[in-house]
Every structure is written in C-alpha cells, then in structure tokens.
C-alpha cells in the first residue's frame, strides 16, 4: 500500500517536472489574438496570417512569388478565355478527415457572393460568372469577361461545405472558434491565456516541418522584443522600428524584411461637417507636424499619398504639404472659421472632433496623444476614443459612425487601393467620392499595359493628395524577427506563413 502510494506520488512528480518542457514548437507573437478565424471575414493581418496556416487556396505563391497550384492538380483554360476547368489533387483531406471536393470550391464561391453573408472578401469572386462541380474532383468556372490568367485571381481560401448549414454564413457562426481547413496546420485549441495552438495537418501535401506552432498574444509591444531575447518566443511578426537596432546586434536573432507596403493615416468622415470641406481637411493636415508624430514610433518615411515611396505608383511630383500653421490658418479662415477666442469657431461651433483608434494598433497611443497635443496647441480640440475589436468592426466598418480614425493599411505587392478610395469600395470608410478617382481606378483595374496603369495611379495620387480624404502619415520599416533556431525560413512578404511547412527547428 505504502509502495503504491509512493509510486503514484513519483508519477505525479514526474508529470509535474515534465510539464513545462516547451518542446520543439515555434511560438510567435501577435499584438492581438485574431477575433475571428474565418476567411470570409478577415480584415486584419493577424487573421490573415492565421488563415495562411489553416487554409489552402486553389493557387498560391511559390518561393519566387509566381502563381503555382495548391489544391489544384491541373487546369485548362478555354480558348475564348471565358471559362476554365480545374481538377483538384486527389486524396486531399480536410483537417477532420473528410475529402476536399469540387463541392467545397463551389460552396466557397457561393458563400462569398451571398449578399447575406456580408463577406468583406466578396470582391474577390465578382469576376466569376458561375461555378459548377463537374464531378467530385473537377470544377468548372465561367467568367464575366475574358481572363488571360485567371489562376492569378484564385488565391482565396477554400472552405469545407460540410461545416456550414448554408451559403449564408454569419460572422458569429461557430466555425470561427472551431475552424476546419486544409492548410498545413490545424487549430488544436484555444488556450486560456488567449494563445492558439496549431498542430500539423497529418495529410498535408508535402509534409510539415515544425511539430507545433503557438500564436501568443503579447499585447505589450515592448515586451515582445524582450521575450524574443529571453528565447521565450521564436518569432516576432513585426518588430517595432525602435527595437530594430537592438535586435540586429543579437546573434540569436535574425531579421527578415516583411510587409513593406503599409501606411498609416488619419481618415476623415467626409459625410460629416466640417470634414466635407477640403479646406478644413487640408488645414488640419498642415497643423500636424508628422515628423514629430513619427519620432517616438521609430524610423519611417513620410508620405504624400496612398502609396509608399518605393511604389511604382507613388507620384514623386506631388509636393508634400508639411507642417504649415500659417497656411492652415488662412484655409480655415477661408472656410469660415475664426480663432479670435483661441479656439477655431464657426457659427458658434468649435472645430472639435473625436479621433477613434483601434486599441491594439501598435504605438497608436503615442501617436494619438501627440496628435491631440499638437492640434490642441493650434486651437483644435480633439477627444480620443480607443475602440476594441468589436466596436471597431461595427462603428468603423459597418456603421461608419465616427469623425476621424487613426489606422494603418497593409497592402500586398499589388498595392490596390480600389477598396479604400473607390466610391463604392468596401473599405472606403470615410465616404470619399471623386468621379475622376473612380475613373482612374477603373482604368487601372482594366489596364493591360503597365504604363497605362502606372500613369493612371500616379494621377490618382495627385488627385487624392489634393482632395485629402485622409491625412497620409508614413510607412514604417517593417521586419520580422526569428530566432536562429528556426531554419529554412522563407517569409512571404504579405501573408507571412505561406511557406511555413518548409521551416525547420534545430
């Protein structure tokens, strides 16, 4: 009896000792755990990165960023370029063991197009006229207009039909906490500390190198770099610019350029007075010393329009209207404001607004406090309201109920600003409308000559810089940091984890 007790105690002891072993997993940090794991409603980069782990598309990028088949085995495009047939690879499985079929592909397209789904990604399939399953392994797509290389547009993630009741998918659908995909990793569990554990998908085509992945929510950005140095994390998705210098001198860490096409902005609600007046918007932009705003965040480049400076679309001829309080005063007076009382007033109403920012936007607190300070010192009262994920989605994305927002857009290498600036763009929160911009965006979209597209978007830059629907702030130097214990790392410049199955741990 005593011996038995002892043995049991010993076992418990061993279990306790064995528990903390971190294992050969890769832990990466995000500022905020994805609120929703469902490719139909992906709006943030952290969600996009998780999607890349869990789901596969029909096509994907290879390491040279050329289109290569993922779920597709082979495809044939009709001579008239108006339809194509896609054959899926045989023996593909979902994480729950069910086979991946043509029905799933058709379902996904239907779900994205379903008006009641309210998918933020609906635009990705608008060019497809009809999707039909020829047999369980073959899909036939017809297009609204001829497509030279339709596979370039077939990157969207495929969802399992059997996990949904109908093509009308709700944001709150249980799928978001229990996702089933066909990507290299499956979601093992949501942990109590808000982290998410992923384990390899056993039948993933090509195998998976790292036996466990953990997404950890580390909301304190300062602490992320520390954890990496402590070797309590293996990867930081995006390093604060001010930490770059420290990390590059640490030999346990290597930095990889990542996600360079992103910019910060202060967006106005153009449907609300006084932001409907371009003079007011311009004046506000001239009251802000952007370099001083940027200083506590780190190094970056100040922008004059909706593209980063190295973009082929950036119009270097557009003058940058920097800090110029004199000109701002003139514009405000022209717009009917008067600051004899120290604050800008028009018809007895002060020029004030509420600035909304997402709670977890990195360094947003510093920027917002600074901005508030600068504007107040020029007689413009700004109140600040940080919104949590749910409030941000509903107030900014759906209701468009705000005066001004501070946020950041990240673009893939195509730098397509259509959704942001087109009058019916899904991400045009401020309600910006310009006929010329719409025309230019259409030209850019339909162009078959790169010179035409470049010219159109450079003109767009100039027009938008004039109209100032938002104050374009800066682009930051973006790097990912990975422990040298992770090898064979190749990072996709936008989706990050595209090649994760090839990574190894030493």
């Amino acid at each position, binding site marked *: 009896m005593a011996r038995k007790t002892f043995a049991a105690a010993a076992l418990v002891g061993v279990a306790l000792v064995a528990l903390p072993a971190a294992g050969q997993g890769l832990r990466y940090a995000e*500022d905020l755990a994805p609120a929703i794991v469902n490719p139909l409603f992906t*709006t*943030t*980069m952290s*969600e996009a990165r998780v999607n890349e782990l869990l789901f596969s598309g029909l096509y994907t990028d290879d*390491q040279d*960023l*050329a289109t290569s088949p993922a779920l597709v085995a082979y495809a044939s495009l009709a001579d008239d370029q108006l339809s194509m047939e896609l054959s899926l690879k045989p023996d593909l499985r979902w994480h729950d063991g069910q086979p991946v079929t043509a029905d799933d592909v058709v379902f996904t397209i239907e779900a994205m197009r379903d008006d009641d789904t309210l998918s933020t990604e609906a635009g*990705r399939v608008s060019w497809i006229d009809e999707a039909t399953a020829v047999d369980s392994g073959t899909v036939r797509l017809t297009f609204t207009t001829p*497509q*030279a*290389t*339709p596979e*370039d*547009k077939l*990157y969207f993630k495929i969802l399992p039909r059997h996990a949904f009741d109908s093509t009308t998918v709700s944001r709150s659908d249980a799928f978001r906490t229990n996702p089933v995909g066909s990507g290299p990793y499956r979601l093992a569990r949501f942990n109590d500390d808000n982290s998410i554990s992923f384990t390899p998908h056993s039948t993933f085509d090509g195998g998976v190198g790292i036996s466990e992945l953990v997404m950890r929510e580390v909301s304190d950005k300062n602490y992320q770099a520390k954890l990496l140095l402590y070797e309590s994390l293996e990867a930081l998705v995006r390093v604060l610019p001010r930490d*770059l*210098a*420290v990390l*590059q*001198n*640490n*030999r346990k860490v*290597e*930095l990889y*350029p990542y996600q*360079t096409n992103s910019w910060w902005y202060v967006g106005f609600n153009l449907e609300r007075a006084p932001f409907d007046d371009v003079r007011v918007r311009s004046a506000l932009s001239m009251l802000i010393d952007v370099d001083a705003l940027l200083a506590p965040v780190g*190094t970056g*480049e100040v922008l004059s329009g909706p593209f980063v400076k*190295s*973009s*082929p679309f950036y119009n270097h001829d557009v003058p940058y209207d920097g800090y110029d309080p004199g000109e701002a005063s003139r514009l405000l007076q022209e717009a009917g404001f008067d600051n004899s009382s120290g604050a800008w007033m028009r018809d007895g109403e002060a020029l004030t607004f509420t600035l909304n920012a*997402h709670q*977890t936007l990195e360094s947003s607190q510093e920027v917002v406090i600074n901005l508030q300070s600068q504007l107040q010192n020029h007689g413009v009262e700004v109140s600040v309201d940080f919104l949590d994920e749910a409030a941000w989605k509903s107030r900014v994305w759906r209701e468009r109920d705000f005066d001004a927002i501070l*946020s*950041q*857009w*990240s673009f*893939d*290498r*195509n*730098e*397509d600003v259509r*959704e*942001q600036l087109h009058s019916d763009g899904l991400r045009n929160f401020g309600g910006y409308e310009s006929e010329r911009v719409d025309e230019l965006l259409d030209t850019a979209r339909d*162009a*078959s000559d*790169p*010179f*035409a*597209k470049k*010219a*159109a978007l450079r003109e767009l830059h100039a027009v938008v810089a004039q109209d100032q629907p938002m104050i374009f702030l800066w682009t930051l*130097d973006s*790097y990912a940091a990975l422990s*040298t214990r992770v*090898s*064979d*790392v190749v990072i996709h*410049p936008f989706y990050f984890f595209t090649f994760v199955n090839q990574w190894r741990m030493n």
Partner: protein
Amino acid sequence: MVFALALVACENAAEDTVEELGPLDRTWVATIARSPARFTDAIADDRAGWVMVHNHDLVRLEGNGSTAGRRGAAARAALHDDLARIEAEAWQRLGKRWEARSGLPEGSALPFFVGLAAWDAGDQETARGWLHRASGADDDDIRGAALALAGTPPGNAPSPDGNFWLQRVQAHIDGRGNGDAGDLGDGASSPVLREHADGHERLFHDPMAHRTLATAHRAAAGTVEGLAAVLFSPCPALDDQGACDAASVWQPLGLSLEAGDADEAEAARSWVRALDAKLDPWAKRLHDEVSDEGRELLLQLRLVPGFRAQVLLDRARQALRAGHPRQAQAYAQLALDLEHPREVSPVNAPGLYAALAEANLRTGHTREALDALQVLTDLLPTVAGVDELVGDLAVLEGLDRQGDSKEN
C-alpha cells in the same frame, strides 16, 4: 544601449583561442586600429575625400583625382555594373512576361529595347530574337536600327547612316573606348523615347547607359596601391605582391570562399553565423587591446561593422555571379544596418542596395527590389531609369492579380 548589447552578444560567442583568431589580425581593420599612424598616413593626401569614401558618398567624390577619389570611382563603377545587370535582367523579364500575357503591344519599340539590352549585355542569341520582333515597330529609325543590330555581334557598332539609335549606340561604344561618358548618362535619368499609346505614354530609358557609365568611372579609378587600396573594402589584406589575399584570412578560420552548389538561403545564413562567431570575439579582443586612439577609430568609424558589411556585400555579388540569387538575398539582408535602413551610411554601401535589388528581382520579388532601388534613386539621378523599368515590371506582373489589403 545598442552598443552594450552588442558587447553582451560578443561575450556569449564561442570563446576562440587567440591563435584561432590570429588570421583576423592581418586585416586592415586590425592594422589601423593597432597603428593609427598608418591610417593617418594613408588618408593624408585627401582627408575630406576619405571621409566621403567612408560614408560611401560617391556622388560628391565624382571628379576627385586623389586616391580617395579613385577609390570612389572604382566603387561607382561597380555600382553601375550592378545597375546594368539589373537593367538587363529587368528588360528580359518585361519582354517575356508581356509577350506571354497578352502579346507584345503593336507597333511598339518595346522589343527593340529588350533586344538592345540583351545585345549590350553580350547575349547575341536572345538579342537577335527580340530585334527581329521589333521589325513591326511604327518608327522607321527603330526598325532600321533593330535590323542593323541583329546582324552585328555585340561590342561592334553598325554604321549609323543617320539613324538616331545607331548613332547613339556608336556614341556609347566610342565613350567606352575613350573612358568618357559625356552626357550619355542622361539617358539613364530621363527617357530617350516617349511612345504614344492610346491615352497614355510609354517611356523608355537608354538600356546602354549604365555600362558606359561603369566604363567611364573605371577609367577614372585607375589602380590604388598599399593600405589605401584595401581601406574600407571587403578585401581583408594584401599579399606581398600587392594583390588581394582573402583566402589566407578566411580559410584558416574555416570559412569557405566557394559559393556552394545549391541556391539556398540557409547556406548563406549559416556562413554569416560562422563569420560572426569569429568576428565578434575578435572585435571584442581588439577593442580591449588597442590604444585609446585605436579604440576611438574602431568605434567612431564603425570599422568592424563596416568591414563585415563589405565582406557580406562581396559574398552577395559573388553569389549573384554564381547564379545564386537566394543566397545573395540572404547575404545582403544580413549585411544591412537597420538602424538606418533607408539610407547610405558607413555600413550601408550603395552596392548593398544594388545587390539586394538584383537578388530580389531575380527571385521574383520585383516589388521588394523597388524598395532597395528607392534608396539609390534618392542618391543618384541616373538610377531613375532602372527604377522606372523595374516598376513597370512590377506593375505588369500584378496586372491580373487582385490586390489584398488588411488593417494593421
């Protein structure tokens, strides 16, 4: 703070014995840190010029005849060589991709320029193919030039006969012969042809300019001897004959000078890790051993990080020559000093950005290549043409794609 961390990092590195690190004491870094007087001697003729060499301020060194000026010219020549290669690669990719996607634009001079670029790069086979396709060009001069060049081996100019383009080719070849680029460099900064298409213009820059500029700068560089030849360069030391002797420094440390067979980034990364494992403890030791004056030099001029970056840049260029762009990409990324990631500095040489751009371009990261080229465009107006060309390629590659954008 940063420096303290760097020191901590050094302390942790494998503790090699003095003998093992001995070869590094032959480097120019050790030489001038141990005897600063030799450094003072070497830069005596043009201190201001040497400051520019150290800062990679190649533009202001232009036309300077001192040793510093000649070192600058040599670096400038290497940079234009890099840019010429990038340009040649980009023209090929642009032509091929455009043709494969929708067929070449009708009546355009595009195939002529693709062909001219290949012809100037010495690839007669490819050049001939493109030049033949240019026979449909609307412009008579272009058609004529294409026809003439298709039958001429690279390096020889066909008789111009009043043809604008052939005259220009002739000018380039003459310029290369006598080492004077004249105003031919303008063709790299502003377009030589504005072609009207429906509703927009196609701008083409001169695909031969950078090679001519490289030749001209190389002529100005001449040869530099002694310590001045290796100062701030990737070459660690000179042998008795005054030639660069890298092997005797790196090989005893177990660092192979070969590029390896496979184009794997991981190979480059492990080479850099091996280098750092030697360089860090050695730098620490050197820092402790030398005189105050020497230490001042080491820290103020950032000699070790600068040398490391030069060595890695050299490796990157080597990898590019060996057809290993992924390795080159890794070398260049690891060489970059991220404290100033968008500017040329004592550590970040212009060549580094060129190597990064070329490696990115050749691994399909066209858009990322533009990030690197942007730095050079801010530095040298003649990079504008390459930047536009690579930009056109990036736009072309994205024509059928759907952009994706997310918050944060």
